[in-house]
Structure formats: structure tokens, C-alpha cells
């Protein structure tokens, strides 16, 4: 079996691990690690009968995810303290938001950088407060820095000098160059406060952001993890009000495609009018599941296509040409 589908099957139906051979276990964990889903997998299959060596991998992955969760929540707490005096809405995004709110995608999930959304009008204040509290620029390349500030939906990344953790400060969830412009004001206005004063997106916006993150903003790298988030969130929040909200943000097509992929890969239950499989869906499916027995990306051609595509979606064509030229002259190639 395609190792990515082996992983999907184990996540979807943990009991299927009963018939795995040693080589399957090796492929399963290699792909789970590559897709940043080892902790998630471990929580799904923990306690089921399995070889001792597999049980060890499960226990290790659970410990690792637990420490990552502690560190991520602490980073959000330190950001909260740094920004407390500003009286500004700080909305946690993605992994940290799921963990802070105890949502189902957070179980065992790896959490990368801290992502926060703040009002665009206050971004300079936020930047200054973070710099005062020990965050520093990650060695800005002058080109990248100008690019970020002019066109992206976030500040250039900052890293904390003592804790070695990155923070991405967003003022919207897609780059300003993208054709799709989600309503950032509404994202902030309708966000939900947590007990400590930090905020998270409301359920529909959280799903919209996850879909935007999966398709519109990115090259589908690590897509199985993002899709698992969507699968869990759809299970948790359902579909009520989702089409309207997604349409408002210009993400109607993205959320429907995400839901179809989640249903195909993880068996998400969809309402009748969400079901289907369009002409492009097979391509997305192949890309999402392109992993070999070692967890390495396969289907290089599909991959390059998606890399260019992700830029096309974000930028008008002449800007794209200039951007790629500058990048490639500096030796950057899609991995």
C-alpha cells in the first residue's frame, strides 16, 4: 500500500494496525514523522495490541508531543505578557489555537512557530513591544524583508533570543498579493476570547483559515497534517454556517475542496451537497499522498507544478516572475 495511505488508514481506523508487518511499521512511522503526524498517530493507536518496539515508538512520540505542547502554550503566554499593556486583540492561529482551546486536532499535534493575528493598524506597536521583550529579527535578507513588509500577510519572522522560538505576526491570513482577500476585520471582530484574554478565531473562520493554509497559501507540503486538522475541526464544529462564511472570505471553493479531500483520505462525513470529486481533485489527492517508504516526497514533477501554482495564487504574474528570478539567482530551488 502507498505508505501515505497506510498512515491515513491508521489514523482513520486505528484497528487496522493489527495486520501490519514489520516493514509496514517502518514505513508508517517514517511517513508519520515526515508529515509531522507521529504524535497524532501515536495517540490514535496507543493501547492497541502491537509489537513491543512499536509501542516504544508510540510512547516516545506521545512524550515528544506533550513537551512541544507545553513549550507552545508557554510561548503564547509570554507573547500575551509582552503585549498585555497594548490593549490589542491577539488572536492565536493554527496549532497553538487548537491546543489553547483544547480542540481535537491538538491531540498529539506538533506545533511549530507561534502564529498570531493582530489588527493591521496596530502591527507597528506589536512589533515594538515584541522587540522590547526579547524577540529579535531572524537575520533579515534585505530582499526578503522588503518583500515581506510590502506584500506578505505577516511581519518577517521574529525569534526569541532566550527561548529560541519563532513568532509570526499576521494581520490577515493570506498575502496582500493574493487574488483572494479574506476579510481580516471580520476575523478579528468575530474572534472568541479565551480565559486568559488571548483569542481564537470562531469555528467557521478557523476552518476557513485551515483551508486557506492548505491550498491557497502554500505548496501542499505537509498537507496530510493540515488536512487532519480540517477533518477534526469539521467533526467538531460541523458545517452549519460554513458555506456562507467561507464565501464571505472568498474561500468557498477552498473549503469545499478541503472537505472533499478530507473525506477521501480520512473518511470525514460530508453533507450530501458537499460530496463529489471534480476534475482537479485527483491531482490534489496524488500530491497530498506523495510519499515513499522512507517518508520522502515522490512525484517531483507534481511538486514543482504545485510550487509554481502556490506563487501564482499569491501574486500577479509579473511580480511572480521577478520574485522567482530573485529567489533562483540566490540558489533557492523547490525541495
Amino acid at each position, binding site marked *: 500500500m502507498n505508505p501515505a495511505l497506510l498512515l491515513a488508514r491508521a489514523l482513520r481506523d486505528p484497528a487496522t494496525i493489527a495486520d501490519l508487518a514489520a516493514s509496514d511499521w517502518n514505513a508508517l512511522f517514517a511517513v508519520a514523522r515526515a508529515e509531522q503526524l507521529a504524535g497524532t498517530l501515536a495517540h490514535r493507536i496507543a493501547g492497541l495490541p502491537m509489537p513491543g518496539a512499536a509501542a516504544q515508538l508510540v510512547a516516545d512520540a506521545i512524550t515528544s508531543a506533550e513537551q512541544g505542547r507545553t513549550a507552545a502554550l508557554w510561548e503564547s503566554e509570554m507573547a500575551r505578557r509582552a503585549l498585555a499593556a497594548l490593549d490589542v486583540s491577539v488572536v492565536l492561529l493554527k496549532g497553538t489555537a487548537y491546543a489553547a482551546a483544547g480542540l481535537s486536532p491538538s491531540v498529539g499535534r506538533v506545533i511549530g512557530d507561534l502564529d498570531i493575528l493582530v489588527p493591521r493598524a496596530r502591527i507597528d506597536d506589536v512589533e515594538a513591544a515584541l522587540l522590547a521583550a526579547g524577540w529579535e529579527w*531572524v*537575520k533579515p535578507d534585505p530582499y526578503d524583508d522588503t518583500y515581506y513588509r510590502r506584500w506578505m500577510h505577516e511581519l518577517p*519572522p521574529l*525569534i526569541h533570543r*532566550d*527561548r*529560541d522560538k519563532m513568532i509570526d505576526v499576521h494581520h490577515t491570513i493570506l498575502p496582500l498579493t493574493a487574488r483572494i482577500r479574506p476579510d481580516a476585520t471580520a476575523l478579528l471582530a468575530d474572534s472568541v476570547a479565551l480565559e486568559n484574554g488571548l483569542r481564537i478565531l470562531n469555528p467557521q473562520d478557523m476552518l476557513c483559515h485551515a483551508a486557506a493554509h492548505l491550498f491557497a497559501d502554500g505548496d501542499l507540503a505537509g498537507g496530510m497534517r493540515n488536512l487532519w486538522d480540517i477533518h477534526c475541526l469539521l467533526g467538531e464544529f460541523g458545517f452549519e454556517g460554513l458555506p456562507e462564511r467561507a464565501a464571505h472570505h472568498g474561500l468557498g471553493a477552498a473549503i469545499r475542496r478541503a472537505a472533499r479531500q478530507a473525506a477521501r483520505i480520512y473518511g470525514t462525513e460530508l453533507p450530501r451537497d458537499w460530496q463529489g470529486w471534480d476534475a482537479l481533485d485527483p491531482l490534489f489527492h496524488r500530491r497530498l499522498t506523495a510519499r515513499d517508504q522512507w517518508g520522502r516526497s515522490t512525484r517531483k514533477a507534481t511538486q514543482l507544478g504545485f510550487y509554481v501554482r502556490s506563487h501564482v495564487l499569491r501574486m500577479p504574474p509579473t511580480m511572480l516572475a521577478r520574485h522567482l528570478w530573485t529567489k533562483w539567482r540566490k540558489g533557492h530551488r523547490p525541495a
Partner: protein
Amino acid sequence: MDDPKPEEQPTRRRALMLGAASAAAIVSIRPALAQTSASVMHCEIPVTDPGRAGSYIAPDGRVVPARTAGAFPAPGRSFKAQDVKRALNGGTLPGTDPQASRAYTNYIRRLQRGTSGFTCFASLQMPRG
């Protein structure tokens, strides 16, 4: 011997100092390997250790007494990781001439665990054999 028994002594309060503003009272343990490539490139390597200020660096990177013939005065400054990386790949450290740069780069190559800059150097070098 008529020393008073301990319980008869007046309670002496323990001495305490708040300490100088310049001296840190807290050291927080950081990951020994930097987590992100970004932070790797952000770290710095002092040449030499603050404790060996005034020493010279021999062409092979050893720290030698001041004014040793053929050796170079320690620059007494830190180099940024990306400059060191460039120098390790045959470039020259900023503000130095090629011979001195090679000596300083050799000094960095010989850094040992526990010496200032080692963690930074190690993160540049990983994986190690």
C-alpha cells in the same frame, strides 16, 4: 567549656545580597542544539574566549602567548554564524586579512564543548562524525 547551647543563641538572620546589576542571577538552560536554521545563523562565535583576551592565534588555530612569531592577535570580537560559515567554505572573515582569517577559522574549528561559541559552531557543523 561554657559555650551557650545552640537554642540559647539569638536567632541570627541569614545574610543575603541583592547583588550587582551587571551580574546575572538566573541562567536558563537552552536547547543545546538550536531548533531552527534561522537561529543557527543568528548566533555568534567569539574569537577568543573572553578569558583569553590579549592572546594570539597561531595559523593552526591554537591560542598562543601574545607576540608569538607567525601568530595573529586575537581580534577580540565575535563573528556572525553566516560569516563563519562562509569562511569555513573558503571565504574570509569580515575585517580580517586572508592569513589571519584562516587562523581564526582554525581556532573556531578547534572549539571544544564548554567553550564560548561552541554550541553555535556545532550547530553550523551538524551532523558530526
